């Protein structure tokens, strides 16, 4: 049961419906960071960064919502997404993505954990300044979203297939202007 009296919606949707004034910039940020196509990182790659950080933060709702979205965009099944969460260096994702995920993992621990060597490594594999910027901000933003969801003890559907089934619709509607109650 959530810590405060929220509309009966799963995960972040409860607090977003409760406080639309903060929901608006939270969703606008997600839209620019994760879905805006004016970006050299694909939607799938950006959702994968969000998924990975959410799994490090042990946030069930976020890692399943964003894992399903990443799977939808990248054409990965749930096992392939789980493999990235569990041990991304041994998966078939690009070397550049591995470098970016390693930066994201450091951000999850704390901003100062990111090293010059990690940044240089990502650059050598072709990452641009803006890709590094967005990776850091996506990872940082999920350190917020995850804490928001779990800090208020929201509930989440436990059947992981639920998230997979809804991902195409979520991808289509985006993070801005959708109906929280649908």
């Amino acid at each position, binding site marked *: 049961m959530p810590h*405060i009296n929220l509309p009966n919606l799963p995960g972040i949707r409860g607090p977003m419906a409760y406080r639309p004034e903060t929901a608006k910039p939270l969703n606008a940020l997600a839209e620019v960071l994760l879905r805006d196509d004016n970006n050299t990182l694909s939607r799938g790659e950006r959702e994968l960064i969000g998924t990975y950080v959410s799994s490090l933060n042990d946030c069930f709702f976020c890692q399943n919502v964003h894992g399903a979205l990443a799977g939808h965009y990248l054409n990965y099944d749930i096992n392939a997404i789980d493999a990235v969460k569990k041990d991304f260096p041994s998966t078939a994702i690009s070397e550049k993505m591995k470098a970016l995920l390693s930066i994201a993992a450091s951000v999850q621990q704390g901003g100062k954990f990111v090293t010059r060597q990690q940044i240089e490594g990502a650059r050598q594999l072709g990452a641009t300044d803006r890709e590094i910027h967005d990776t850091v901000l996506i990872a940082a933003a999920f350190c917020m979203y995850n804490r928001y969801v779990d800090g208020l003890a929201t509930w989440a559907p436990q059947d992981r297939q639920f998230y997979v089934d809804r991902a195409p619709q979520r991808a289509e509607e985006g993070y801005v202007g959708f109906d929280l109650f649908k």
Partner: protein
Amino acid sequence: MPHINVNNSLAGIRGLMNFRPETAGPLCDLAEVLLRSKDGLTPAERELIATHVSYLNDCFYCHNSHGEIACYYLKGDRELVDQVRKDYQHAEVPDKLKALLQIASHVQQGGKFVTEEDIANARKHGATDKDIHDTVLIAAAFCMFNRYVDGLAATTPADLSTYPPRAKQVAENGYGNHIFSAKQPVAKIV
């Protein structure tokens, strides 16, 4: 020096925002609602929560920036701000704010660290659902802002006398686009 070339010399998060205005927009909007709303918690209380969480995250730029903004609202009581920053349990602040700071410090560790007892204690001292909601989201948001600033090694002025002019700008004009425009307030040379 920042990890990326931001093409400007603005301090802290301002330099990052100037580099990427598309994400700066919603970040500023979020800060404006969370830190300047007068609905329930006061702007001073909101900034004190932000200051404490930034201190726990060891983000020098953020805890000094928001500490100075809190100080501005508190008519220059820097001693109180410093006490809340480092040891709020012994600060001269209401028990309700202490209970909310405890929730915020648990959010800083991770969402699941917030306990039923934390919530019950805040309620006992008069916190409303909205106070608790805003406290959790302010603390969570600073776990983002702090990581954004330090994760990209943003320019951090070491000279504390440079913080009050920027704090005054925010306290008087809010978290609008002006905070990352090219023209910035500077300390008066005495």
